[in-house]
């Protein structure tokens, strides 16, 4: 408990210190603070006793926060949220140190905001009280708004606005839903409670199916914006494209995961009837997202935008796994959240490193950088392979379990978890593998390989007016700018690569840690899915009578 709060509050304290400290010391302080936060969390994870039980540790305390409605400061982790929080704490030092050379403007503010962003994301993952979760979830927007709007690319204002308003609108749905559930709980039991477990148990058991349907719909609508799911994704490419490198990394790495985590943690357990009823619709959206975003990636010329759209496609697969409503898919989905954070974060980092040297992201103007930066190219290929799911690297396990889960999510109950999807969904989403290879290799083929194309005017001329690149930096850019990665940069990438490799080669501990939580979350689903299947008699009959044609696919 104390360690959790330590990991959350250390960044806050760091931000406070940075605010009054010397501007030159800001970056070192931020690095120290983020490493200390990681350390605290790592110690907690080391001592964490519930890796294999799926339980929440420590039991969330009843420390009052808003005592009139019994909102508490309850924090605690189960293995899923702990893994995600570890991912966050792991990425933040990388982001901070990765910004050392990129940000030379208003450093104190920058690192201060970053620390606050870190704290709020950790808070969201740690919170066991839904209102506290909301606070963490929502507060992330504030630092991110400033990070993008001040240190972003040329269209940073618009991007920041859109990000803020769009996701804020989404979270209103989410807030409304949890307030509704809390109020229902009060109306029904006379007690206020905002504990996730209590509310989930209450809502899933006591609310009628119809209410659950709308509850799930509202929660899904709220989180879908953050994930982002297909029709509500358009803020993401812009935000990614305009954000400074570290902002993109953390946005892709963990901020989007808040959406998927929200669905996993709140929407699915609270409204199983709704989840079962809406799984097909949501999965259709996911499947569309996979193909749609992948095709869009394929025609992008901006490297960062390409990777941004790939996030939409990848998260489509991730959510599809979740909506398979069986342990295979959900396992894959949770693992995918982590993997996506690692590999896409690394790709953004790499693109940012090249951008620092050339100030160009457009692949029409720049390419073949492998000749100049072989080490960079190595990592680029490595993380590309991780991103397109090469077995042996992290992407594979999550991606394949997601597809696998989707595939076996048929009405057939031999797995103990009847599902509503099936081979059709897996087939369409599986084309994402092909398309994924197409666009990622396009990226590698043009950006990394091929004849060397460099913008004629380096640094100075092509500077596109974004802040955050100091004039001095552009000055020595000519000598140093086109060199290969520096030791610091390699030092950032190597841990990422090692973690990717480890997860790919030995995912068993993570699978075993995630498994019990997933089973717990999905416990009400077999029954709910059965009911949904029965309520669609023609579909169920068709599924049984004509197994050759999977009509829902």
């Amino acid at each position, binding site marked *: 408990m104390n360690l959790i709060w330590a990991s959350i509050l250390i960044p806050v304290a760091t931000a406070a210190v940075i605010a009054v400290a010397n501007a030159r010391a800001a970056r070192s302080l931020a690095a120290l603070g983020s490493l200390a936060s990681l350390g605290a969390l790592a110690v907690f994870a080391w001592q964490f006793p519930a890796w294999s039980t799926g339980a929440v540790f420590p039991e969330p305390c009843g420390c009052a926060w808003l005592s009139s409605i019994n909102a508490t400061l309850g924090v605690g982790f189960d293995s899923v949220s702990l893994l995600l929080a570890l991912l966050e704490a792991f990425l933040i030092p990388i982001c901070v140190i990765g910004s050392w050379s990129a940000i030379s403007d208003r450093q104190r503010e920058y690192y201060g905001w970053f620390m606050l962003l870190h704290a709020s994301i950790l808070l969201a993952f740690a919170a066991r009280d839904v209102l506290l979760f909301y606070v963490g979830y929502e507060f992330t927007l504030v630092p991110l708004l400033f990070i993008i709007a001040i240190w972003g690319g040329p269209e940073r204002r618009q991007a920041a606005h859109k990000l803020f308003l769009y996701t804020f609108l989404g979270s209103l749905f989410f807030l409304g839903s949890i307030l509704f559930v809390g109020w229902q709980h009060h109306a029904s039991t006379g007690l206020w409670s905002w504990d996730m477990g209590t509310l989930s148990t209450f809502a899933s058991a006591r609310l009628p199916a119809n209410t659950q349907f709308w509850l799930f719909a509202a929660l899904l609508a709220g989180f879908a914006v953050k994930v982002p799911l297909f029709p509500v994704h358009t803020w993401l490419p812009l935000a990614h494209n305009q954000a400074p490198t570290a902002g993109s990394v953390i946005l892709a790495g963990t901020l989007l995961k808040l959406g998927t985590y929200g669905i996993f943690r709140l929407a699915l357990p609270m409204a199983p009837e709704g989840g079962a009823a809406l799984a097909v619709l949501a999965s259709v959206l996911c499947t569309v997202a996979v193909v749609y975003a992948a*095709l869009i990636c394929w025609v992008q010329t901006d490297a960062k935008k390409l990777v941004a759209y790939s996030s939409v496609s990848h998260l489509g697969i991730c959510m599809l796994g979740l909506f398979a409503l069986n342990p295979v898919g959900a396992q894959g989905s949770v693992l995918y959240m982590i993997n996506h954070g690692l590999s896409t974060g690394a790709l953004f980092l790499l693109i940012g490193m090249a951008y620092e040297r050339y100030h160009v992201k457009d692949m029409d103007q720049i390419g073949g950088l492998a000749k100049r930066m072989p080490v960079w190219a190595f990592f680029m290929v490595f993380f590309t392979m991780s991103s397109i799911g090469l077995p042996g690297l992290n992407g594979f396990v999550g991606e394949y379990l997601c597809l696998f889960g989707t595939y076996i999510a048929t009405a057939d109950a031999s797995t103990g978890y009847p599902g509503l999807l099936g081979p059709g969904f897996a087939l369409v989403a599986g084309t994402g593998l092909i398309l994924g290879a197409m666009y990622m*290799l396009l990226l590698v083929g043009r950006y990394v390989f091929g004849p060397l194309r460099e913008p004629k005017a380096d640094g100075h001329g092509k500077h596109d007016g974004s802040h955050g690149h100091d004039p001095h930096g552009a000055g020595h850019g000519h000598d140093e700018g086109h060199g290969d990665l520096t030791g610091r940069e390699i030092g950032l990438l190597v841990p990422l690569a090692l973690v990717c490799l480890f997860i790919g080669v030995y995912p*068993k501990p993570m699978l075993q840690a995630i498994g019990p939580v997933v089973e717990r979350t999905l416990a009400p689903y077999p029954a709910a899915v059965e009911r949904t299947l029965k309520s669609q008699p023609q579909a169920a009959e068709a599924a049984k009578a004509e197994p050759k044609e999977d009509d829902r696919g």
Partner: protein
Amino acid sequence: MIAAPAMLSSVLALAEGPLDAHAAPELRWAGLALLLPLISGVLCLLCGWMKVRSKLPAALTIAALGGAFATILRLQGAVGETPVVINLFDWISWTWGDGSRFHGFTANVDLYIDRLTVFWMLFVTGLGTLIALYASEYMESDVGKGYTRFFGAVSIFLFAMGCLVMGGNLVMLYLGWEGVGLASYLLIGYYFTKPEAVAAAKKAFIVNRIGDLGLALALFLIWQCYGTVEYAALWKAIEAAPASSEWTAQAIPWLLMLGAFGKSAQLPLYVWLPDAMEGPTPVSALIHAATMVTAGVYLIARMFPLFIVNPDALAAVAWVGGLTALLAATIGMAQYDMKRIWAYSTISQLGYMFLGLGVGTTFGASYHVFTHAFFKALLFLTAGAVMHGFAGQLDIRKLSGLLKVPGFRLVSLLAVLGCFWLAAFPFTAAFFSKDEILVSAFTAKDERVHVLGWIGLVVAALTAYYTFRVGFRVFFGPVKYEPGDEHHGHDDHQDHGHDHGHAHGSHGASAAHGGHGHHGEFHPHGPRWAIRVPLVLIAVGAMLAGWPSYRTMLNHGEPNWVKTQVAQSSAYQGVAAESHGSHDDHAAAPTAAEGEHAHADHGHLVLGMDAHTAVGRLGSLACIAGILVSLYLHLINRGAADALRRTLMGSIATRWIVVGAERKWLVDEFYDWVIRLPLRLVANILSAIDELLLDAGIVNGIGALPAAFGRLFRPLYGGVVQGYAVTMAGGVALVAAWVIWIWLRGAN
């Protein structure tokens, strides 16, 4: 509190898996075959890091691959009739619910060692070692630049191939499958500054991915039907419930087939292989001729129990194989680039193997894989040696009489020998393996495939023709050559010629150098020992590849060694029962089966002869006919070939033959127009929809609503103070009126 340490320790515990009691102790070391290439890969990475500027990476790789070969040789002696599963460590495995069948998923890093595995690994590691040795000289101009990258990728390839072949479950196979794809990608794109190479690498990877999707879906289906993806458990499950009529079970072979066709370059996914020749020649030899492309054959052979229950799928495999063989042979006849011809011949030969699989002779297919691996590697490596010596020249019109060029005599000799094998000249190894396939085609129970036997014979003739077209043109005749445009292998060599606009294989432009203009300055340099030794060894291997058949022939009744290997594996499960049994009645007793050989062929007469005899004679005839035509057109009267071409081109009726064959039947263009361009169009439209309709239209539109609403009232705020006053006063008035109205209503 100690959960995490416990977790960590389990990570590190790569415990030796439990072995079956009767297994030989050597099997414990099977993992070395995987580990050694992996180690050399990591060491190569370190070399790259340290910027090693010597041939150290090559030495490391050769040593590691040699070690792997030695391991496999030991296994060869130790492996028994029953397969052994060795668990290296747990990979993806967990259970849910009660953990019973269908309540768990297990795909560990297991090795499944049976004779098929060892047989396959034998030539993979053997050829890998030799070709690495060859490459250590071939690539020497890149020392300090791409040298470590090259050998690192080769190591990765061998590791992945090992996973593919030795893996104990389909997910391991998949790992290898994608891993070899990655290695192939890296090696095709080795000259990464050359756009063609990058494009070819990408193409290879993407086309393979289509097949991979099939394989992945098949994997899911297999789990769904049988509840496991581990071979050992799978065979048991199939035995327990052999032929399910569920569509799921029926669909498995079709999806597996898709995977196999992708990796092994069969119709309709063969298009990547010719382009893959952009890679360095040793790579073409190792990956794109001898080993990786046979993974599809391995897959189907390994999964044969799933195919045997589905005659339609088998027939499809046979037809695809036969047609691919024919198509590729016709294209190969009309190409001028030596490597490309060998590439098409590879596709064609792979077609034979699939034909063999389709007609039920896993033995024939595997045997052909075995023989083909040697002679095709030989041909590629000699081509590479020629290319190495002649600055990248590969155009068969610009090379002639190499047998007489000093330094190239041995290479040429070996190349011509290789041509004999490829043409399946009577009593060469390929003759026997091809014979096996064709006999099976003629005698298959499924009569739909008999015609494929005739197609196979035609292809045999075509093969002989195009093989010797190269042989006669390049190695015989008057000495005449012009160097390529690549300063490959020169000491003053600077930059791999990527700065030249085109590939070493592009012929048209090199003519600009003008016939003998270069002759004065250009001295082809012959290969040294590191190229010669592997060539000779491979040639010996190619000869020895026929040894099993010679032995069978000489002492009638002795089982073919290859057949023994194949028969004691899943590849023969059910074959005896299903197939007509021209070879065996029972997988476990090939000896007896061989004896009944003659009886089994009764009733399958080809041209009134016993199938074996007929195919032997017809095959020899086809081969010799092809060689003779080639001899006339390409050695005795070389002008005649051009004249023939002109004649064919002259007539509208025949023009399409030449144009089609030379332009590869426009398959690439067809794919471009039918798949890539529409997809690109759709992608552009979607991109526009996303940016204009979804984002700029709907999202920004909704975002603009409040602003638009505000703009309604904009005239009130013209900046003039009264404008604001009007609103204020109006607002006050309205509020007052409203309050009064409420009050009045309440009062009355």
